[in-house]
């Protein structure tokens, strides 16, 4: 069938390069290995960086007329809009799209230039050695409770698209007043959302708006952390991948997109403590599958428009 033909064509291309910001290096390496195992003869090279670096590299490549990457996986919604505008992407509709978790479908590009391949959640997290499950906040508004004064940790929307999305969502739910109240608790503001994990482990803060995957991975090691799926909704992050128009290995790229959505691929992700996007693959222990919980999310348009706004508001309110 089609997959076979793609594989044959990909073998002629020998290798593909994947610019990714979706996971850490080990996960990226594991996914590449899994891909190579499934499709011997096609080499998978990953360049794992932050989203901004990935985008800058791509931008410089485009400027210099270098065709290096075939697949790009950024976490920043804005990048895709811009890449689409600038015509850097080529359309492809993976066969495995049928197995995508339904909640993610709306993130796919109507023109098939990019599709959702990774997911994550922003949750309430806390240190279990200081906070008992019953005391722990249940919903986002609980974080503004004065009993957490000086003990809350959040990220900064100026440094992290993840945090930016969360802020946009909170503003959508409760208006900017939510953050004005939060400021009364003098939250510790870290750079990325992952900084909250460090803060909790150090007990410098004891509750936080944190990421699901990293918190659960740390918990899996035995650190005294736990997550709460807020009653008013866990904020869902979806990140897409796309194939570049000037991809040196377009067939291998397509094959790779298939793999990212495939069961095998998602099982590799789960082993690495990532949330799966394939609806047939179960999440890791300690977490719930996205289907089981209430998730909330802004639309891509809201994100794109909202993030620059909330950055300014955030600065107004928190002073940085």
């Amino acid at each position, binding site marked *: 069938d089609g997959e076979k033909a793609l594989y044959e064509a990909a073998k002629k291309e020998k290798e593909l390069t994947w610019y990714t910001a979706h996971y850490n*290096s080990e996960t990226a390496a594991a996914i590449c290995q899994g891909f190579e195992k499934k499709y011997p003869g096609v080499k998978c090279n990953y360049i794992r960086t932050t989203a901004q670096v990935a985008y*800058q590299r791509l931008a410089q490549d485009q400027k210099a007329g270098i065709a290096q990457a075939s697949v790009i996986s950024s976490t920043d919604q804005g990048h895709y809009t811009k890449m689409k505008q600038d015509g850097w992407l080529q359309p492809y509709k993976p066969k495995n799209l049928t197995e995508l978790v339904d909640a993610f479908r709306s993130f796919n590009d109507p023109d098939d230039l990019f599709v959702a391949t990774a997911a994550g959640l922003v949750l309430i997290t806390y240190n279990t050695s200081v906070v008992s499950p019953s005391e722990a906040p249940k919903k986002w508004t609980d974080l503004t409770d004065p009993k957490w004064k000086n003990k809350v940790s959040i990220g900064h929307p100026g440094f992290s*698209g993840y945090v930016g999305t969360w802020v946009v969502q909170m503003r959508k739910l409760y208006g900017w007043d939510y953050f004005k109240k939060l400021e009364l608790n003098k939250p510790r*503001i870290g750079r990325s959302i992952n900084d909250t994990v*460090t803060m909790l482990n150090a007990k*410098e803060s004891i509750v936080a708006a944190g990421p699901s995957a990293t918190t659960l991975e740390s918990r899996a090691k035995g650190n005294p952390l736990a997550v709460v799926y807020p009653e008013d909704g866990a904020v869902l992050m979806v990140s897409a991948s796309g194939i570049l128009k000037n991809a040196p290995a377009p067939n291998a790229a397509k094959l790779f997109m298939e793999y990212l959505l495939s069961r095998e691929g998602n099982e590799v992700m789960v082993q690495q403590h990532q949330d799966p996007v394939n609806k047939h693959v179960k999440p890791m222990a300690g977490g719930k599958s996205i289907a089981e919980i209430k998730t909330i999310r802004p639309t891509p348009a809201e994100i794109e428009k909202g993030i620059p706004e909330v950055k300014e508001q955030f600065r107004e309110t928190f002073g940085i």
Partner: protein
Amino acid sequence: MKDRSLLVWLLLIALLLLLVINPLARLLWASFEHPETGAFTLGNYAAAYGRWRNVEALINSLVVGLAAAGLCIVFGVPMAWAVSRTDMPGKGLVWAAVLGTFIMPNYLGAVAWILMAGPNAGWLNRIYTGLTGAAAGPFNIYSKAGLVLVIACYSFPYMFVFTRSALDLISSEMEDAASTLGASALRTTLRVTLPLALPAIMGAFIVEFLEAIALFGAPALIALPARFQVMTTMLWQMFEFPPRLQVAAAYSMPLLLITVFLFWLQYRLIARKGFVSLTGKGGERRMVRLGPWRWVLLGYCLFVTSLSFFVPMVVVLQAAFAKAWGRGFGWDNLTLRNLRFVLFDQTATRAATVNTFVYAAAASVIALGLALAIAYIVARRLVPLGRALTYVAMAPFVIPGIVLAIGFYAAYTAKPLVLYGTAWILILAFATRFLPIAYTNSDASLRSINPELEDAARILGGSRVLALRRVVAPLLKRGLAGAFILVFIPATRELSSAIFLYTTGTQVLSVLLFDKSDEGNFEVLASMGLILVVGTVALVLAGFRLVGRDFLLRRTAS
């Protein structure tokens, strides 16, 4: 007829210009480029400096930089003096601790300090409240003072190594002349010995100041929670979507003026003064006898290295051997899993380690060779307007890595040097980025050599190049070995340019470490840090054996 060596000098100058001007010119160009149209504009500068917030961040950076560099003098100079010129015991330990400080990834140090002096749960505060019953402790790492301390702890090794190499070359007769005139050991040190090392101290000060401005890691962890921005945190945001690369370039360019200003200042302060301590008439170095004071000095050295190394090391050890570091000390929490993971399981580590060391070593050799040659050209005025080369050689340091990386990327994916995808792009980027460290060191060291030592080689028929190789370099070898470390170690942990320039097969450790710090995977990070510290300290100490004996110490002194 002209000096044949001139060709060599011109070639080296050309190389310098290629390495530095090529990427910087592209940034400069970008800073005047309209983001959309590409037309010439001053708008980027208006955007960068038209907002008080950005200016304020810059001021914060300057204040923190000055304070940190000042603190480095307080930390580094007495230690360098103690190790180089006194009979203080435990020098090996102190030297190892300084090395360890320098090698320890800066993120680990910062986290360790958060654990120690965090206002809510820091150990120091808990001890304080435990002892006094007070409600809160006095220490708050989340403050400008805290940031200054962390930066100083992390960068005082520059001061130590620079000053020590200079002090190593000063003949004891210079001090003897003062003490026979009745000056006490302290006065002799303050009035004679240290002023002779002034070029090195000032050089280190400049390096530290510039480094503090360009540093991102520690400020990101400490400045933001402390609710202030510095220049690099501002810059970082400019790369968030929608990226404003041109504004970032415009924001960084004025830093070059700061570099120029500092070197002009140094030039003025040094003026006509001489610092020749190797006169060509023998001269030896004897250790100052401190009597009971040597224990006081050792105490001070241990205090500083405790701040910078031993205490953070306790945190690192705890985390490296912990199943879950958040659970604190406990027998049931001990494991070797992290170390095993780093050493054996993590597939990428091995190749990345090899790459890291090879690239860093190659970059250090290039940087050191080039720096020594350029410093020599400047010092001996081999070409007209040589002083301008100083500014060129120093320029790469003050531009924050994230911005400079763009310049590198642009420079090496376009003519005349297309290196994209090769290891050379990383090596040259590292060499360029840390050239200023090597340059400052060479510049200071050269002042301590009587030019007649080279003259003597030349009149016997040796070219300048030979004189440099056979006389100058061996004379400075201990200092150069120190400079090598100062370039090598930062090169092993350089992230900003590495993450931009690496490709498959040229991955380096810093990128792996970044993952771990980015996701707060502290146990593995600590293990990697521990392995780095132990491995590199051992390597360096062994390496110093090979450098050979310290020729100013008499072999036969009693």
